[in-house]
């Protein structure tokens, strides 16, 4: 492996909407690891701002709620402006593990890939944490993404990704909602970015389950993906 990157140049982007009760706990290990942390507060109506006060993080705040995809794009634009070399997408609800970040960065640092996707379905020990019905929905998502974009990954809608500066500058998310995950794949294809997958652990706490997307939302996402293909 090449030399590990300067962690200050690794920007971890965390879109947050009403995550006031858990956000400090999620940020602490990332700050401790020395990464540059960007919290994109998507106009939370709770005490998120108070919870963030005094933390050594960049706080970018949307004036109105736009959605997760929009928050990620804001975070990426900000990070690029601040001179980021690598960008990590990270969920605010505590389901990702900060220890997995170096493994995601590795293919970027070695110059083997421009974007690395985290996957819950590479190691059997990660997969067993995914509830059965969710597993089915994600399997279907994998197939739909494959059909629509020609890119076959083992996981769909895993919010844990790593991008190098070039990939983050090329990609521009227009899907403000959750359909951005498929949109990223479509753009990876369009810009011929090199991609890789790495295993990540996922923690389904009661909190993240309550905040996470319900299964029905899968239909909403599918609808969004289809309609945007027809109408631009």
């Amino acid at each position, binding site marked *: 492996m090449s030399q590990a990157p300067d962690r200050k140049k690794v920007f971890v982007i965390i879109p947050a909407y009403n995550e006031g009760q858990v956000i400090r706990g999620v940020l602490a290990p990332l700050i401790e690891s020395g990464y540059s942390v960007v919290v994109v507060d998507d*106009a939370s109506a709770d005490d998120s701002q108070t919870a963030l006060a005094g933390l050594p993080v*960049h*706080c970018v705040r*949307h*004036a*109105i709620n*736009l959605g997760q995809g929009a928050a990620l794009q*804001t975070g990426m634009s900000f990070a690029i402006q601040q001179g980021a070399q690598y960008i990590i997408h990270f969920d605010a609800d505590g389901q990702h593990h900060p220890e997995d970040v170096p493994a995601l960065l590795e293919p970027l640092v070695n110059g083997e890939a421009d974007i690395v996707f985290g996957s819950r379905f590479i190691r059997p020990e990660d997969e067993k944490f995914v509830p059965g019905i969710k597993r089915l929905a994600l399997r279907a998502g994998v197939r739909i993404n494959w059909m629509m974009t020609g890119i076959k990954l083992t996981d769909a809608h895993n919010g844990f990704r790593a991008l190098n500066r070039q990939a983050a500058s090329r990609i521009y998310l227009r899907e403000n909602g959750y359909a951005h995950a498929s949109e990223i794949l479509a753009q990876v294809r369009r810009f011929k970015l090199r991609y890789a997958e790495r295993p990540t652990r996922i923690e389904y706490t009661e909190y993240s389950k309550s905040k996470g997307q319900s299964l029905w939302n899968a239909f909403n996402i599918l609808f969004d993906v289809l309609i945007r293909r027809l*109408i631009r």
Partner: protein
Amino acid sequence: MNLIQITLVLTSAVIVVLYFARMRSQLLDRAVGVTLFITSLVTIIRPGLTTTIAHYFGVGRGSDLIFYLMISGLAFLCVVLYTKIRKLEETQTIIVREIAIREASGISRIEDRGSRIEDRR
């Protein structure tokens, strides 16, 4: 003329006047507006005409033909509005993003941090 014919002619006249007074639109839009207005006038004054056209298209009654056309027109309108709303959302996103980034990087302080647009309405 029947009372309904007078009512309909007046309604379309009012709509077309409002259309030209309020909307600043492209030439094509205006052409469509004028065509629609003339068509409605003709069909109101000569109600039998729609049935003749309907027969030509293999539809039994003139009112059925109008009904089908209205449904397609509505669907078309939905698509047009959807794309327009989508464009507006994109513009809005860009503005909100720009403000957020400027504020976070300390370029300029546009509004008090912590207060949301909804709160200030």
